[in-house]
């Protein structure tokens, strides 16, 4: 008898463990089935690609937040650093174009400079956190205010105009075009007669986003940099004793975070062909929620890029699905709040089981 109940108990525990580990996948599948059944036209190539297309900022900011949260910190500035980058990038590209540079040169130069300047907020954040012992919440909130102010100042009330058409072509173009049964081409939209359907596969910005996310995921999973990140989040004293230069590493983490936010800002420039100061503001909450849904702990030491991407998928699908359904986006906030709490409760109730996996 006793052995029997034991076996049942372990089996039940295993079930809980499975659920605790994979509930997010299950949730995503259920979500997609729900929208496929209720929202007309949801299950189409176009809408599924739109989830990715409009989700790019969530994916990038979520990835940025993953690194910071693994170290036990938080970065509240990502949203407005993204806005700052969008404004700066758009102004620079427009300025270079006005100076008479070619479209390709002005885009590369403008956005390149933006990506470098975007490291500065991260450097300041990191220095405050690592060297001056300012709590991450406060340091990055201060940077949130500062980058908001600076981007509005840069904007000066006038949106950047007259960006080259090439920006639009990159930002809203697709990686692969297929004319069924006839031709396929990369990047360039084939010239066809009116009425002929062209399949557009994978937006360019999604390709850029996921290449970068793959690289960063590799860094976190396979390199010393990633190992040290987990070590610092797990136990900062032990990490120091193990000879890790914690301060330097933390500065780098915050710089990486604001670099990814800046990248999201430059993608915004390509997508919308202008820059807005509050371009990234709505995505701050989403990015943190995505990381938590992905099973990271705000106390640090836990989390992976892959699972954060899963969390981002859940949120991006929710947003697009509700829009296709024609429901007011107000419901999104309620849903996100409830999902967040459920995620943490599941994590709380099966702690040792889920933690073992990492």
């Amino acid at each position: 008898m006793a052995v029997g109940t034991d076996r049942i108990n372990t089996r039940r525990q295993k079930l809980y463990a499975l659920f605790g580990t994979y509930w997010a996948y299950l949730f995503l599948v259920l979500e997609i089935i729900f929208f496929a059944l209720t929202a007309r036209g949801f299950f189409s190539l176009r809408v599924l690609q739109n989830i990715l297309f409009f989700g790019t900022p969530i994916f990038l900011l979520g990835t940025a937040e993953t690194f910071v949260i693994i170290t036990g910190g938080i970065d509240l500035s990502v949203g407005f650093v993204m806005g700052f980058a969008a404004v700066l990038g758009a102004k620079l590209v427009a300025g270079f174009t006005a100076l008479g540079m070619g479209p390709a040169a002005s885009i590369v130069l403008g956005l390149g400079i933006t990506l470098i300047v975007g490291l500065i907020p991260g450097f300041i954040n990191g220095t405050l956190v690592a060297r001056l012992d300012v709590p991450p919440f406060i340091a990055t909130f201060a940077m949130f205010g500062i980058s908001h102010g600076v981007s509005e100042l840069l904007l000066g009330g006038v949106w950047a105009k007259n960006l080259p058409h090439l920006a639009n072509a990159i930002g809203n173009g697709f990686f692969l075009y297929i004319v069924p049964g006839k031709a396929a081409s990369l990047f360039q939209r084939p010239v066809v007669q009116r009425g002929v359907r062209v399949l557009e596969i994978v937006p360019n910005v999604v390709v850029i986003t996921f290449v970068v996310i793959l690289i960063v995921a590799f860094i976190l999973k396979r390199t010393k940099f990633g190992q040290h990140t987990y070590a610092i989040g797990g136990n900062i004293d032990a990490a120091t004793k193990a000879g890790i230069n914690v301060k330097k590493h933390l500065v780098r983490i915050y710089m990486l975070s604001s670099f990814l936010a800046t990248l999201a800002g430059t993608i915004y420039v390509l997508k919308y062909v202008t820059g807005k100061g509050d371009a990234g503001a709505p995505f701050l909450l989403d990015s943190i929620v995505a990381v938590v849904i992905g099973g990271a702990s705000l106390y640090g030491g836990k989390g992976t890029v892959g699972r954060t991407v899963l969390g981002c998928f859940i949120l991006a699908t929710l947003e697009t699905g509700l829009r296709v359904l024609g429901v007011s986006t107000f419901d999104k906030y309620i849903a996100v709040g409830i999902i967040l709490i459920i995620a943490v409760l599941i994590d709380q109730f099966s702690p040792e089981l889920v933690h073992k996996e990492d």
Partner: protein
Amino acid sequence: MKSAEALEETAGRRRARIIEVVAKNWASFFLLILLVVFSFTGRGFFSLGNLQTIVHLSTVLLLLAAAETFVIISGGIDLSVGMVMGFTAIISAKIMQILYRAELPQGTCILIGVLAGLAVCTLPGLISGILVARYRVPPFIATLGMWGVTLGVQLKVCGGYTIPFLPPKLVDIGNGYLIYVLPGRAVSLFSPPPGVAQTQIRELIRIAPNSFIFLLVVLGVMWHLLRNTKFGQHTYAIGGSMDAAVRAGIDVPRHLLKIYVLSTFLAGLAGIFNVFQAGLGNFTRFNAMYELFAIAGVIIGGASLMGGKGRIIGSIIGVLIIGVLETGLLISGVEPFYRFIAVGVILIVAVVIDHLFPDLF
């Protein structure tokens, strides 16, 4: 020789003492400096009317900061206060609107609306309190969840528009003053002296907005609660060391629950005040970031995010610094975006000073 050394030593000690006093009260000094500077740079800044306006407009943030003070001292954080404020304002205004349309007397509409608002505003706090205290969900996450839920609910109720057509008496109360003086002719309480012509309205001196009295009462009670009662003691104890508090026999989960309910109750008061002030039901915009400015005020006022430290008076000074800065920059003709930068920089300065002088408060 020796006496000279001793003299030098006392001088050194005195200097250390002065530095300590300045560092300890740097926020108050900073507030004074701001007031002086803006009095020179901004025309009409240093006037009774303007200074009263600054406090009147800071009312909401002061209440939210008081809420945040309790939570932060206990070692937590409440990100939902700004949204709970809008949530309460919308629900209370909606009820007033319905009753007023049903042609009930204004007093009844307002009373029922206020009571209903105060009842619902404790719900989010109850939920986040249970999550934090019983299920050990990190406060950041639990209250972020309530942030989303209360934002969604208020937007659903109001449909994304402010709620109009409320009893007109609301604004009279919310924006009224305690004392009106028409120099040399008349004095009256609560409403302008009867028979004041439109031409004389500019001469009318208004003293002590009604919001002052409201603030004095609420903040006074909170100050007393935190400083002189067992409730306050327990709050500091939990923030100082959770384990020690448990061993000292404090029912920590129960106390934490109370703190989160108190926090959203104060946020609800802010929401109801907002209805009185605006005469409309305003929802909180998702990027308004009230909670962050309230937290900034509390931190500038000397509290620590690690818990166990903070005072109501400090939080009041912190919020007033933000309020004076905003109004002062505006009157001085500086572009409004600088205020974000300024608040950010002051916040960093506050924490660095706190770090350099850890044992001051």
